C-alpha cells in the first residue's frame, strides 16, 4: 500500500476517522491494531517478526531496569545481537547469496521497514540502559511505537521517549489541517518534482555508456534533487499522517542543499538517521578515541558514514557511497582548522567562500549519490567515465525538452518556496480571515494544478521504500 495510492489515502481517512470515536483508554490498542492491519496488507508472516522484535525490546527494557550494572550490559548486548543480527541477516542475505551462488541464488524479500523499526527499538533499549528514559511497562504502547504505520515504511526514526509521551495523541482541528497540507505537499514533491526528474535520470542510468556527457551531468545533479523530493515527500506524508493521530514526528530534512560543507549537509539530510548514529555510535566512539584528537574524530566520522552506507545495503555501491561520504567528512574535519585560519587571514575571500561552498557541497553530494543510484559499482564507474565523453546535444530526450524542463524548474521553485517559507512551521498557518483563506486557496490551487497537469505519465515507486 504505497503512500501515493488511493488505497493508502482511504485507509488513512478510515483509521483516523475511527480513531476519533475510540475511547481514550483504548486508543493505544487501536493504533496497534490499525498498524498491524496495515502491515498485514504487505505480509502476515513478517508481522510476526515485528512482534518478536517488539517483545524482545520490551523484555530487555524491563530486565535492564531491574538488573545490576553488569547484568544491564549483558542484556543490552544480547538484545543488540538479536535485533541488529536479524537486520544484518536480511540486509546481507541476498548479496551473499548472489556472491556465492551466482544466477541460481536464492532471494529473500526483506521485511517491510525492518531498518526503521530495528533502529527505533534499539534506541529505546539503549536509552533505558543509559537511564535517559524509563522502561515502558505497557507492551501495547511499545508495540504502537514500533509498528506505528505512518512511520513503519520509511521513518522518520522517532525516539521512544518522544513518541510515548505523546500517547494517546492530542486530536485537534489544527493538527488535522496541518496533516492534510503536509500530505498534499508530500504528494506534490513525489508525483511532480521527483517523478519529472526521474525522466531525466532514468534514461541516463539505463545505458550510461552511450549517453552524452551533458545529459549524464544533468542526470547526476537531477538525481540529487529527485532523491530529496522523493524522500522529503515521503517524510512529509508520514509526518502529516501522524498528525491525524495527534503524534508529532521529528523532521528529516532542513534545507540540506544550502549547506556550506558535507558535515553540515549530513546534519541536515536524513536527520533522524544521522542523529541516531551520532548519539548511539559516533559519540561513544569519539569518547573512546578522544586521545587521538582530530584524527580520532575523522576516523569516527568515516566509520559513521560507512555505517550510513551499510544501513542502505551491503552491496558494493552502497558501501562506496558510505566510503565517499566518509572521506569527504573526514577530510572536512581534518582541514577545518587550517581552512578557517586561511579565511581569517584573507577576509576579503570570505564572501566567495560563503557563495561557493553550497555549490561545491551540492556537487560533491551529487557525485556521492551516483553510487547510491547506480545498480552496481561498474554502472557508477561508467557514469563517471562518461563525463569525459563529448558533450553531445540535449534534445528530444524525455524531460529535457524546453517546455518540459520549464515545468520541472517551476515545480522545483514552488517546492523550495513552500519549504523555505512555510514548511518549518509545518504549514500551520491559520485559514481564518481573508488573507489566510486566500493563502490556503492559492496553496492548494498551485499544488493541484501541478498534480493535474504537471505529473508525468510514468509513476515510480518511492526510492526509500526499499530500505
Amino acid at each position, binding site marked *: 500500500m504505497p503512500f501515493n495510492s488511493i488505497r493508502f489515502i482511504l485507509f488513512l481517512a478510515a483509521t483516523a476517522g475511527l480513531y476519533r470515536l475510540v475511547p481514550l483508554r483504548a486508543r493505544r490498542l487501536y493504533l496497534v491494531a490499525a498498524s498491524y492491519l496495515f502491515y498485514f496488507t504487505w505480509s502476515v508472516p513478517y508481522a510476526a517478526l515485528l512482534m518478536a522484535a517488539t517483545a524482545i525490546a520490551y523484555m530487555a527494557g524491563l530486565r535492564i531496569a531491574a538488573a545490576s550494572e553488569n547484568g544491564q550490559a549483558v542484556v543490552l548486548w544480547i538484545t543488540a545481537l538479536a535485533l541488529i543480527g536479524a537486520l544484518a541477516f536480511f540486509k546481507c542475505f541476498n548479496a551473499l547469496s548472489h556472491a556465492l551462488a551466482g544466477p541460481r541464488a536464492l532471494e529473500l524479500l526483506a521485511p517491510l521497514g525492518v531498518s526503521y523499526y530495528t533502529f527505533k527499538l534499539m534506541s529505546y533499549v539503549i536509552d533505558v540502559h543509559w537511564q535517559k528514559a524509563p522502561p515502558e511497562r505497557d507492551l501495547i504502547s511499545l508495540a504502537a511505537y514500533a509498528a506505528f504505520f505512518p512511520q513503519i515504511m520509511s521513518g522518520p526514526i522517532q525516539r521512544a521517549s518522544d513518541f510515548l509521551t505523546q500517547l494517546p495523541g492530542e486530536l485537534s482541528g489544527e493538527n*488535522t*489541517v496541518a496533516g492534510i497540507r503536509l500530505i498534499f505537499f508530500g504528494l506534490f514533491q513525489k508525483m511532480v518534482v521527483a517523478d519529472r526528474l526521474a525522466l531525466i535520470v532514468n534514461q541516463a542510468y539505463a545505458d550510461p555508456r552511450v549517453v552524452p556527457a551533458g545529459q549524464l551531468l544533468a542526470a547526476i545533479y537531477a538525481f540529487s534533487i529527485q532523491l530529496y523530493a522523493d524522500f522529503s515527500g515521503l517524510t512529509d506524508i508520514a509526518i502529516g499522517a501522524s498528525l491525524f493521530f495527534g503524534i508529532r514526528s521529528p523532521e528529516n530534512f532542513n534545507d540540506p542543499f544550502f549547506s556550506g560543507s558535507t558535515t553540515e549537509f549530513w546534519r541536515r539530510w536524513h536527520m533522524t538517521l544521522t542523529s541516531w548514529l551520532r548519539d548511539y555510535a559516533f559519540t561513544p566512539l569519539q569518547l573512546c578515541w578522544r586521545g587521538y584528537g582530530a584524527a580520532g574524530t575523522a576516523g569516527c566520522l568515516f566509520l559513521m558514514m560507512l555505517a550510513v552506507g551499510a544501513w542502505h545495503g551491503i552491496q558494493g555501491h552502497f558501501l562506496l557511497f558510505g566510503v565517499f561520504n566518509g572521506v569527504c567528512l573526514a577530510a572536512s574535519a581534518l582541514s577545518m582548522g587550517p581552512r578557517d585560519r586561511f579565511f581569517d587571514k584573507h577576509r576579503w575571500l570570505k564572501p566567495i567562500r560563503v557563495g561557493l561552498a553550497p555549490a561545491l557541497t551540492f556537487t560533491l553530494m551529487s557525485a556521492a549519490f551516483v553510487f547510491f543510484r547506480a545498480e552496481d559499482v561498474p554502472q557508477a564507474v561508467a557514469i563517471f567515465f562518461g563525463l569525459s565523453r563529448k558533450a553531445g546535444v540535449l534534445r528530444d530526450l524525455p524531460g529535457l525538452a524546453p517546455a518540459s524542463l520549464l515545468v520541472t524548474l517551476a515545480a522545483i521553485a514552488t517546492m523550495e518556496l513552500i519549504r523555505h517559507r512555510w514548511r518549518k512551521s509545518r504549514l500551520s498557518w491559520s485559514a*481564518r480571515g481573508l488573507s489566510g483563506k486566500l493563502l*490556503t*486557496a492559492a496553496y*492548494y*490551487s*498551485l499544488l493541484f494544478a501541478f498534480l493535474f*497537469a504537471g505529473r508525468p505519465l510514468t*509513476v515510480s515507486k518511492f526510492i526509500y521504500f526499499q530500505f
Partner: protein
Amino acid sequence: MHSPGPAVREFSLIAAALLIAAAAAEALLRAFSPLPLMSPAYTDRFGDPAFMANSQIKTSTEDFDVTYHTNRLGFRGRNYELMKKPGTYRIVALGNCLTFGLGVDDLDAFPAQLEKRLNSDSLRLKFEVMNLSPIGGSLGSQEFLYRAVGRRYHPDLVISHIFFGNALNYQYVTKKDLVPYDEHRLRADRMHRLVRFIPGYAFLCEHSHLWALLRLQLQSEQDVLHAQRWADASAGKDSADLQRTGIATFDALAQRVCSDGARLLVLKQRGALGSYPLFDDYLRRKTEADPCFLALDLDMGPQDQISGQDWHWNRQGHATVAGRLLGLLKRTLLRGELRP
C-alpha cells in the same frame, strides 16, 4: 455566529482550489500542450476499450478517419429487439477488433454487410446480424458476452471469429471463471466502467484536454502494473498450457450455444493458427464430429483476410468475408431460404 471548525474550513477551501486548479490546468494545456481528445470510451471487463451506449465516436488516426455509432448496449450497429419476431433468423457475431470493424464505417463491417446481403437474397425470412464484438475481443470475452448478452436474444446462429492475435493469451484466458484477470486489474476496470456514469462524462471526453491527460495518466499506470502482472502470470507457463485453457474456454461457449439450440459457426483466420497446433487440432475434430458446428477457414489469399496488407481497415476484406459467409450459409444452413 458559529464559525466552522478548521477542518471544515480547510475542506471547503480544498474544494474551491480543486475547481480553480482544474480550470487553470485546462487553460494551460489548451494554450501550451493540447492533447488529442478521447472518445467516450471506458475499459470493459476484459481490459479493452469499449464505447458508451448510444454514442457517436469520431476516430481520427494516421490511417483512417471513421465515425462509429453504438447501439443501446454499447455495441456497434443498430438496436435489436430483445424478443425475436416470428420469421426472423437471428445471428450473433462474436469476435474481436476485426469483427467489430475497426477502421471501417458502420455498414462496411462484415456483420453489417452480411445482414444486408442476407436480407436482399432472402426469400421469406428477415435476417438480423448482431455484432457483439469488442475491440480486442478474445475467447474469454466471447464466452462472457454470449453468456451475459447474446443468449438473451435467442440467436439461431452464433459466429465465433477466432483470430489468434488476441484470442489466446494470458491476459484473456484464466482458469477462474474463464475470464482473464488478476484482482488488481479487475478493480481498476470496475472503476473504469463506473466512471462512464459520471454526469457529463461524454462531454468531458469530447471537450476537456485535462480529462484526456488524466485518462492517459491512469491508463499509463494501469499499463505498467498490467505488464508486470501479465509477465508474472505467464512466467513458467508454456504454449500448451495456454492452449488447453483456451480449449476449456471455447468448450464452455460451444456447450452453451448448442444447448440453447443454436448452431455455432467457427470463422478461423487459418494463417494465424500455426503456432497453436493443439487448439487447431481440437477445432478441426470438433467441427468434423459435432453436428452443431460449422467452420469456415479464411485462408485463401490476402483479399479475404481482413487483417491483410491493410491491417484492420481493409474494406475489401470485409466484403469478401461477408460474401464467403453468405455462400456457406446458402450451401448449408439456409439452403432453400435464400436465392441461389
